[in-house]
């Protein structure tokens, strides 16, 4: 489940939008950051992408892991510092296709909650400083990936596409933890709003995050 061979959408859309591979000189291969034109204005694009050679084996499929968290925070803080004295702050577009946070022993020993909180604080403070934050959800945004990469945005935009998935947890794991079968859960999805599994059903509430 954590293996996500389809997590290619983040890189594909990032490259299409920026014309760049987004590689940072001193960053992990999974973190893509570049400036590109959005209309006529400069904008920052940031995305995660799979990296089979990543140092951390539990974070090779575009998960939010330790390096993604700490280097992602650094990248966002640098952008904020560059624009600190500018009247108009560049928009930051978070292009999201990320399966979840990284599950592993190393991650918890170091404190992945601090790595993830770093990104959240950076997005939130960038928004408060006047950077428009847009989450463009082109694939998966599940659990910690949604909370870190999307949820502090002024606006969330999700493609109306069956591969787009926004959720608190994958369906089979959620069924297990809430002690129900997947079939029961599916039935519940049809009648109860908190369980949407696809973006088109989520969209109504997607813009309710405060700005």
């Amino acid at each position: 489940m954590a293996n996500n061979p389809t997590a290619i959408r983040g890189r594909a859309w990032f490259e299409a939008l920026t014309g760049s591979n987004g590689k940072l000189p001193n960053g992990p291969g999974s973190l893509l950051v570049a400036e590109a034109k959005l209309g006529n204005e400069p904008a920052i694009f940031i995305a995660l992408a799979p990296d089979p050679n990543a140092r951390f084996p539990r974070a090779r499929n575009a998960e939010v892991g330790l390096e993604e968290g700490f280097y992602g925070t650094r990248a966002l803080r640098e952008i904020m510092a560059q624009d600190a004295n500018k009247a108009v702050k560049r928009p930051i577009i978070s292009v999201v296709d990320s399966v979840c946070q990284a599950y592993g022993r190393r991650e918890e020993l170091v404190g992945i909650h601090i790595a993830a909180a770093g990104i959240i604080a950076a997005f939130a403070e960038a928004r408060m400083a006047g950077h428009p934050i847009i989450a463009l959800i082109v694939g998966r945004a599940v659990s910690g990936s949604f909370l870190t990469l999307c949820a502090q945005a002024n606006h969330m935009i999700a493609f109306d596409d069956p591969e787009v998935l926004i959720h608190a947890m994958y369906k089979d794991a959620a069924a297990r933890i809430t002690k129900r079968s997947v079939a029961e859960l599916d039935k519940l999805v049809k009648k109860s709003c908190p369980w949407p599994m696809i973006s088109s059903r989520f969209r109504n509430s997607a813009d309710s995050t405060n700005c």
Partner: protein
Amino acid sequence: MSLNMNESNSRESRRSYIELKARERATQLLDPGTFHELVGPFDRMESVWLPMQGIVPQSDDGCVVAKGTIDGQPAVVIAMEGKFQGGSIGEICGMKMAMAFALARKDNEKGIPTRAVLSLESGGVRLQEANIGELVIAEIYAELVALRQYTPVVVVIAGNTGCFGGMSLAAGLSSYVIMTRQARLSMNGPEVIEQEAGLEEIVASDKVFVWGMCGGAQRYATGAVDVLVEDDADAITEAVKETFRKGLPPVLRTDQYELFIRRLAAMDTSKQWTAEDIRTVWKEIA
């Protein structure tokens, strides 16, 4: 002999914080006689999503918000009840938390220095409320980050439920964390890691290992929490007061990314690590 007797006396006079319910915890942390509950059980703010899934809701949704004073200063205490739905964050309890932070921020903007304490017992988002839970957690983060500019936001993690998932990130965002040895702080619970990543990552039934990895003592030794306290209601109250006396932290935990980047660079990721490995490297690269 006399030492032992003193110890036993102090144990008798000691009251457990862990055994207190959420409302008692909030009362405990506020100055005596100042507890005033906001959106209490008689306001009947209950989850509408739980009954349709065959679960009896609770009239405070597992979250108590109380206004009062701490050390004579205006304060709001938000206490989660770990015994209701695992301290999970649903729509009502999450919004109570977020709005309490928002009111405290508005106070601060008006020059009233209202401080905030978050007493956490939480397994994370309430899966029965799924995406709504995620959205209110996003609101909690937004308001927490806005509030911590003005006043310390102090997180207390005391009990056996611990602090996981979405609320572990709230602890990461807070100004200070106070923790007991009994509590755990971790983004992914050990069972989830075992299930998703296998036994080579974590054996969830190995309690010694699990507490060694994410228990209060290890978190304190590696700087992920600021104060390690005994399970003593008065000692925890005193630790909260002492923490507020320090004022805003010189460096927030979420601003320590350069330090973590240096530490990660020094680690050999080709092997699994022990809690001791982290303590050693963290001391070397401080």
